């Protein structure tokens, strides 16, 4: 979290923590608003899924993680990357498809990652990240490491076969993984109870003799506390868990969706009145943090977001002659050497020149 200046932070450690969490929540909100503007200005492409409204869950869950813990998420993950400390410049540059993006411009919004911070992506197939997170937990056990994995998924993902197979494996093998189900009430336009025969999603954990809990996902401190407890148990006792955090997505499914075909304006407004950002700010003020201090923090963050956009804009796109970089490891060029004759891609050079490895 090198980019965050904490000199103006409160001294009471509990309040100081909340203050920093608020900063992160605010960063996520403003960052995503900027991303949306850049998307509409066609500087960002692909799908762009915003998490506005869900910040308390994101920040609370990540705050509960130890540095050595690992994180795996779906595609609605700008917030997770930022909360885990990936510099905004690096995330924004990724959204712009630039060289210094956290995936060097090759992944975009859905495929953020930062291995140095234990963040292993950023995946786009609903449910696809679950077996992978489970395998990471298996690897931790094989090493005897006291670490755990947090695997984020949406309420829509609980109906995928991969959910079932992963939870069963995690439970039958006693793996240290917490499945964080972000129940924002909808998977695209489908309300939870139209999709899931058991709409109390945490109860599904019982089918694997696994602990399942539900938490108010807009209550940052509650999210942090229960995530912390479940992670601790995962690390120490190798007990996996499901944590369902109930929250709301203020915006449409992606920037392209107005988000009103399947829910009413009233419903959205009602939830906006319980904005976790406003709530957290109020809590800070109630605990004695002066309003001006919070305004200053907000300005700092806004500057930071602006800088990230400027950084991304100035950053270079990846060189076209390195189209295939990363696909295979070094040494593979030699293996592929003999595949050239009659190569059909149109221009074989595009793929082979510049090498396959990093």
């Amino acid at each position, binding site marked *: 979290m090198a980019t965050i200046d904490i000199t103006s932070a409160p001294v009471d450690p509990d309040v100081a923590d909340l203050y920093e969490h608020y900063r992160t929540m605010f960063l996520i909100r403003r960052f995503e608003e900027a991303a949306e503007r850049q998307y509409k200005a066609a500087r960002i*492409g*692909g*799908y762009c899924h915003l998490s506005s409204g869900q910040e308390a869950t994101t920040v609370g869950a990540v705050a509960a993680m130890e540095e050595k813990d690992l994180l795996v998420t779906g595609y609605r993950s700008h917030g997770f990357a930022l909360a885990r400390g990936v510099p905004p410049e690096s995330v924004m540059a*990724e959204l712009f*498809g*630039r060289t210094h993006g956290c*995936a060097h*411009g*090759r*992944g*975009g919004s*859905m*495929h953020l990652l930062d291995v140095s911070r234990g963040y292993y992506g950023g*995946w*786009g*197939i*609903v*449910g*696809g990240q679950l077996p992978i997170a489970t395998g990471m937990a298996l690897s931790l056990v094989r090493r005897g490491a006291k670490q755990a994995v947090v695997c984020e998924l949406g309420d*829509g*993902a609980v*109906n*995928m*076969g*991969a959910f079932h197979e992963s939870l069963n494996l995690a439970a039958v093998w006693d793996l240290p993984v917490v499945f964080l189900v972000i129940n924002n009430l909808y*998977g*695209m*336009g*489908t309300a939870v109870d*139209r*999709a*899931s025969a058991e709409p109390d999603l945490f109860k599904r954990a019982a089918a694997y003799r696994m602990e399942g809990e539900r938490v108010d996902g807009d209550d940052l401190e509650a999210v942090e506390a229960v995530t912390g407890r479940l992670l601790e148990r995962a690390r120490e006792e190798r007990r996996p868990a499901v944590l369902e955090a109930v929250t709301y997505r203020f915006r449409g499914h992606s920037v392209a969706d107005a988000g009103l*075909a*399947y829910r009413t304006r009233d419903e959205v407004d009602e939830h906006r009145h319980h904005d976790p950002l406003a709530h957290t700010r109020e809590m800070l003020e109630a605990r004695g943090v002066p309003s001006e201090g919070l305004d200053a923090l907000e300005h700092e963050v806004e500057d930071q977001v602006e800088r990230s956009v400027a950084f991304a804009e100035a950053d270079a*796109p*990846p060189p*076209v002659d390195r*189209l*295939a970089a990363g*696909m295979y490891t070094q040494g593979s060029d030699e293996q592929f050497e003999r595949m050239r004759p*009659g190569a*059909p*891609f*149109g*221009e074989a050079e*595009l*793929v082979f020149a510049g090498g396959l490895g990093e």
Partner: protein
Amino acid sequence: MSAAGVTEAPAVAITDAAGAETVTYREALRLAMRQEMERDERVFVMGEEVGLFDGSYKVTAGLMDEFGPDRVRDTPISEEGFLGAGVGAAMLGERPIVEVMTLNFLLVAMDQVVNHAAKIGAMFGGEVRCPMVIRTPNGAGNQLTAQHSQSFDGWFAGTPGLKVVAPATPADAKGLLKAAIRDDDPVLVIENLPIYKEKGVVPLNPELITPIGLAAVAREGSDLTIVSHSFATVRSLKVAEKMQAEHCVSVEVVDLRSLRPLDVETVAASVAKTNRALCVEEGWPSYGVSAELAARIQHACFDDLDAPVERVGMAEVPLPYAKELELAAMPTEDRIERAALRTLDLAP
């Protein structure tokens, strides 16, 4: 069926009492579904977001209002489950149209398509059938990145027991989808993301279909045959115009329309005339559709060919996000043109 016959460019107006209209590919698909649902009670649509959300790509927009939630059924995110449910319903004689949001997501339902739907007729000795339609778009563009930009068309086309069609025009979108719905076997209808918004003249006659297994000569020419399907046909037609204008080269474009059955006859007849062939596809060419085409052409036209069959498609990488990289990887008109010139020995 002659109206949609072999030698006709797919987008010309069709003389028919029912008339014709200029609509998008997306609207043409919707028209096909509406007409077939009106005609046959057994037809119903099922998939993620096909109802309340009006379809992820708006193909089914309005249909739930018109036919109700039983015949336009929203599903959980469970492709294997609901696609397999389509198989089961079809075995009892329903005519399910299962929409899969994009071809990429068929990977999680592959087993139901390849090892169940495709097997039923033969494995059960013809005792039971599976008359279902699976609709899904392939294609890349718009920086959707590696997991969302794929075209596995050839995998399904290589599966005995399935039929696979891939319309390139609104008229064929309507005609082939209708043919698929009426067909008594499982048919995969591969749509395409970039074409959804393309417009064309579509005959309104509800009895007109585009026959499965029949390619179309989308453009006549004499110097080179480009063989393609889906969006690659749209690209190729533009390249053909440009080559006529800039290089005075006459390019024939054969739009496959069906991948299984594959109309090798039409392809071979064209190549016999032009003596040169270029196969273009949106997907990766190695082990792709263009491989089969090149294999068939070299066999059927061995003595006719003046040059090796060339191929062009997506560069063989998981599609990167950055716009510049994506563009460099796609089978753009530029790249098709270069490949065409190469096939004509007009470029290295």
